[in-house]
């Protein structure tokens, strides 16, 4: 990466960090024959090896994460994760520098139509959440900034982190906000706040409340309405060929996503666990070439391992199959690798990285068919899908995951801010117990803030659990 491309604008700080972190990760991964930081004489030595302009980035990044990605079994997925971070945010930066209107949108909205309007859509939540994945201090500065404005600590850090960055001017102020009325009040209210605080127009795409024909029709009209409003606000119009181009990217991405999902049924589990949070977060790039490349790389890594009957856990350990019913913890990716190494516990699936096969491929015949397809897919996107309607969708997804992925234990690491989940957690675990007999382990986390349930505490909880088995 040519660091001269980095914008020196303050509001690009976070985006630049992501680009540089991606590049730095790749540098490490390309160093031949090292499988841990120790191999090169420890962190200080490695910092020394890095070009000077990446040393500050090195200081930001979680060291345990670097040790995890250097492991042989994780390298391929690691390359995918870090390359994506670099390429995607480089693309975003380039488009922003070109002065195109910038949209920050709720992460589970199919962004293809916004690219097709020659806008620069970025998932608002991701701008904070990715810090939580990469950095020692996560997005805590952003969270604390928002709370210091007097907003409650029970909001979702997915928004409070990014809004804090917005308040500190560390991410670009969007020209438009686009929000999906599902999933929750916490996210909705942060969009309402940002829209008023910075006087940014807010475009709503209402989720239908029913997974049926009527709901689908409604979703279609809502996406069309959003397009009209965006046209009115930005003066940009939708281009059919561009839309087709971006939908083809996301079709490819989703088809790899689904093929990877199929592989997760296999024992031994062919896919490593550490990158799963990124799998959800990187849905934000649907419609860009990067997303297709990302899921393709993950699929091929898992496929290769499956073909040779390979496993992601140490020799001689018995594979225990966990499903992360509600959520993953973005702030501690090494935790999922630790589970594999320490307990032979593999990551099968979770509702946030689960997309039903019928979300499927969008028909690119015409604008009409594409919008219909995107509307349908929008209804099947994680989180929105589970929370928009009645709980049966959510419950059935749980049961499907537990059955299809042959799960031994359903871990409900409930996200503190998710009032939906906490209202339904017993119905969900009871139903799973009733349908599959699989037991549930439940504890409280904040998906993006390590201070709530720190890594050592999670490890203690899991040790206790496995010791009792």
């Amino acid at each position, binding site marked *: 990466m040519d660091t001269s491309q980095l914008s020196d604008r303050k509001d690009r700080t976070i985006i630049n960090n992501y680009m540089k972190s991606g590049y730095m990760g790749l540098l490490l991964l390309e160093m031949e024959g090292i499988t841990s930081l120790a191999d090169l004489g420890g962190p200080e030595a490695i910092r020394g090896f890095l070009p000077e302009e990446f040393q500050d980035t090195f200081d930001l990044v979680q060291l345990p994460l670097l040790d995890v990605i250097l492991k042989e079994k994780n390298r391929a997925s690691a390359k995918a994760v870090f390359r994506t971070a670099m390429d995607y945010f480089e693309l975003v930066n380039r488009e922003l520098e070109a002065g195109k209107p910038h949209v920050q949108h709720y992460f589970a909205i199919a962004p293809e139509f916004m690219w097709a309007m020659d806008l620069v859509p970025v998932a608002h939540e991701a701008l904070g959440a990715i810090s939580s994945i990469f950095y020692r201090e996560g997005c805590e500065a952003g969270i*604390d900034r928002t*709370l*210091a*404005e*007097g907003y409650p600590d029970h909001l979702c850090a997915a928004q409070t982190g990014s809004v804090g960055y917005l308040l500190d001017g560390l991410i670009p102020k969007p020209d438009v906000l686009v929000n999906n009325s599902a999933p929750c009040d916490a996210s909705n209210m942060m969009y309402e706040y940002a829209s008023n605080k910075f006087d940014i127009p807010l475009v709503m795409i209402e989720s239908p409340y029913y997974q049926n024909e009527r709901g689908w029709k409604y979703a279609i009209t809502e996406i069309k309405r959003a397009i009209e409003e965006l046209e009115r606000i930005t003066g940009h119009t939708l281009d059919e060929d561009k839309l087709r181009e971006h939908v083809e990217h996301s079709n490819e991405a989703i088809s790899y996503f689904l093929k990877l999902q199929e592989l997760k049924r296999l024992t031994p589990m062919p896919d490593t666990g550490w990158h799963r949070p990124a799998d959800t977060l990187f849905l934000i790039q649907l419609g860009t070439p990067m997303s297709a490349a990302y899921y393709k790389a993950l699929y091929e890594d898992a496929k290769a391992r499956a073909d040779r009957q390979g496993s992601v856990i140490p020799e001689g350990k018995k594979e225990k199959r966990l499903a992360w019913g509600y959520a993953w913890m973005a702030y501690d990716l090494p935790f999922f690798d630790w589970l594999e190494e320490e307990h032979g516990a593999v990551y099968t699936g979770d509702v946030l990285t689960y997309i039903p096969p019928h979300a499927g491929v969008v028909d690119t015949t015409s604008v009409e068919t594409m919008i219909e397809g995107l509307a349908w897919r929008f209804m099947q996107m994680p989180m929105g899908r589970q929370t928009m309607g009645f709980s049966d969708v959510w419950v059935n997804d749980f049961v499907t995951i537990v059955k299809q992925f042959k799960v031994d234990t359903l871990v409900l690491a409930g996200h503190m801010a998710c009032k939906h989940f906490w209202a339904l957690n017993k119905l969900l675990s009871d139903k799973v117990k009733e349908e599959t007999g699989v037991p549930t382990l439940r504890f409280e986390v904040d998906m993006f803030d390590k*201070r709530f349930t*720190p890594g050592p*505490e999670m490890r203690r909880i899991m040790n206790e659990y496995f010791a009792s088995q």
Partner: protein
Amino acid sequence: MIVAGCDVGSLSGEAVVLQDDSILAYEIMRVRPRPELTAEEVTARALAKAKLSFEDLSYCVSTGYGREKIPFSNSSISEISCHGRGAHWVNPNVRTVIDIGGQDCKVIRVDKLGYMVDFVMNDKCAAGTGRFLEGMAKVLGVELEALGPLGLAGASPTGITKTCTVLAQFDVMCLLNDGEDRADIAAGIGRAMAERITKMAKRVGVQGEVAMTGGVAKNAAVVSSLQDVLGLELYQLESVDPQIVGALGAALFARERCERQERRKAS
């Protein structure tokens, strides 16, 4: 004119006897099971110090947790107003007052006359209050007063992750056992407090000079890390014990109300 202010909190009670614009005497004591007993005793002691008795008082305002149960007080005022007023009397440039009591943590903004214009107070849980420090001091096996100096000696503050006042105590026990330096732990405790307080301070908006009142203001570790985190100098109430500021504020209100009464009588 001689007036008194009496502040009965959840951990300690204070009384201040005021003549015109000067403090004649004050007293601090650990609470008795009932607020009226605490008030009675602490005020009597303060009066005795000034060689006075209840009869000499023209007016008395009570404040704090048990303010409404004090038989001999003429009226009561919330501790929030009193801390603001008291701190402002000590230093008229003070516009922001941080008061940390037994279970409460308040940040108060006052106007140029010392009247409270805005405040925030901790909700839901007691993390970052006097109780927190008490428990920690107990675990560290030092007097509450000794916790501050100990913390100042700490070079690298230990991270105290658990926010819950109670749960954190066991963590600290373990840290101790793992041979963690006691000074560093004490410093970490101060740091943890400071971070909680800072969030609240930012909410009301820090203005003018900032004074810290209440017993915790005597904890040097908390004060110094609070200065770090807030990034400003706290005004030190040298001339007055930070713990009596609530009672002092109450006494100032007592004077004001007494004067008003007399004016009414006159007219």
